[in-house]
């Protein structure tokens, strides 16, 4: 396994775009981790009615928001919530969707029908509504937001993974594994999911941005992360009010999202290629 990581990284190093992405996202993550040391102001609560809506300057790198808070500080701290949100929901829904999709694809038949109909059902309920209902049912808060977003995302993964699995089970190595008496779960995770990694990774990186944005649209509806914890999506929605007076309020969290998404996608593309030992160069 150690070998594998090294190997994957070695392959990824050759992909310039992926490396740039990796550097950027690492920087963003480091910023998030060390936010307390980096940020010039105490985060979150510190508000100041005298310093509202100041444009970017040397004291306030990204300006201040409607509550007189330093936007730079909030963007840095927002990375925590937003990235966690994007990554955790993606991870859980990828795993959940992965397992469901893999089972549906691998066993086929009735189980397949059942799983897919259930997922259809969830998919039939529009994303936003599902999230809204769950948040309405369980109350808002980041935990429930996570659940909501995750559930709405599971069918998407499941569908894609099922399709991939269907093509993988055609391979003889699955049969070879069966011939050795390998148990089903081992076949699924070691032989099937491992080979479905490419599409999963790509879907996952795309999904991270979708999740952050879904959280943002939920904050647009007032269902986002609990304040004052800054979160990029919510910051964007809050900045909406000041769109015309203080456009920079939107630019910085927006740029943070775009940058993370861009770099994550670059990394995702690179990772997909690197994970696939078959791809040359």
């Amino acid at each position, binding site marked *: 396994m150690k070998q594998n990581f090294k190997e994957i990284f070695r392959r990824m190093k050759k992909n310039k775009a992926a490396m740039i992405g990796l550097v950027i996202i690492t920087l963003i993550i480091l910023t998030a981790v060390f936010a307390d040391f980096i940020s010039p102001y105490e985060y979150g609560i510190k508000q100041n009615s005298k310093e509202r809506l100041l444009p970017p300057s040397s004291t306030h790198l990204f300006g201040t928001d409607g509550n007189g808070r330093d936007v730079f500080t909030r963007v840095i701290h927002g990375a925590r919530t937003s990235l966690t949100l994007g990554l955790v929901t993606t991870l859980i829904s990828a795993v959940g969707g992965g397992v469901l999709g893999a089972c549906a694809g691998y066993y086929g038949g009735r189980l397949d029908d059942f799983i897919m109909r259930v997922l259809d059902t969830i998919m039939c309920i529009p994303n*936003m509504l599902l999230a809204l209902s769950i948040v309405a049912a369980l109350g808002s808060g980041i935990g429930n937001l996570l659940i909501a977003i995750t559930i709405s995302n599971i069918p998407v993964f499941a569908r894609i993974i099922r399709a991939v699995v269907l093509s993988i089970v055609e391979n003889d190595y699955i049969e070879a594994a069966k011939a050795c008496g390998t148990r089903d779960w081992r076949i699924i995770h070691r032989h099937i999911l491992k080979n479905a990694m490419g599409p999963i990774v790509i879907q996952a990186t795309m999904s991270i941005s979708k999740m952050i944005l879904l959280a943002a649209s939920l904050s647009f509806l007032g269902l986002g992360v609990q304040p004052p914890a800054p979160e990029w999506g919510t910051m964007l929605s809050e900045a909406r009010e000041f769109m015309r007076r203080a456009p920079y309020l939107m630019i910085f969290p927006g740029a943070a999202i775009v940058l993370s998404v861009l770099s994550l996608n670059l990394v995702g593309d690179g990772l997909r290629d690197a994970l696939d030992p078959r791809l040359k160069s």
Partner: protein
Amino acid sequence: MIRYVLKRLLLMIPVLLGVAFIVFSVMSLAPGDPARAILGENATQEQLDMLNTQLGVDQPFLIRFGTFVVNVVTKLDFGLSYNSQRPVFDEIFTRFPYTLRLAVLGVIFSSIIGISIGVFSAIKQYSPFDTISTILALFFASVPGFWFGMMLILLFALQLGLLPSNGLDTVKHYILPTLSIAIPYSAGILRLTRSTMLETVRQDYIRTAKAKGVTEWVIIWKHAFRNALLPVITQLGNVFGQLLGGAVVIETVFAIPGLGSHIVNAIRMKDTPVVMASVMLLAFFFCLVILAVDLLYAFVDPRIKAKYARR
């Protein structure tokens, strides 16, 4: 083929029932009662009780669900909106056309933009065009819809005064909302088109076509693109489904009386009949869209058609 369609239509029943059950239970489990939402902050307890009894929300869950299903199945009656006391379907059907039109336009434009650019950047893989379009796509995939809508409004409605900023009265009114929907979605379609095209142009039959001396254009659109279409159609189906119920933000920003924002309001007001009916309607359409997508597969790919025919 017809048998297949019938079977699929039949399979919609459990799905719709499932949707109904889930939404109904969520609506019942959610805290807050509709009477409070309707009567507002200042209501007294008597008023609340009175209204709740009138609305029938004090009955046990299963009975309410049962009644709901029976009414829907036997009379296609979704009841009255708690909130407005109007028949739910009247309310929905005044709004649904807007949503449907926007969704259709959104899908059309996002596919036109996404597919054409996607195909082109696949052909010119690694060219500056490809790089730029990929970056732009990722950019548009990561800006929230409302931002885009608001920028368009500021630019075209306020600064230039070219286009109206709200409502859907004339053709002109459709331009900005359609763009705000289409562009972010086209980003996803673009990426998908690009990757499937890259996959397809590597296939042997493309080489066969080239060896026949077929022109580039025909190879791209007739041979490669049609084969790359399947995943793109799936994606378009998903987009369509999402747009049917999900363009809430765009509806709000452009003051469009669509279904999305109506449902959101209904959820907030705990207006179960409205939520039920709208989601069921959406689910119904979504199922139809999925079915249409599957039938479109058959139209595009004769192998799939053969599979359906045999079922």
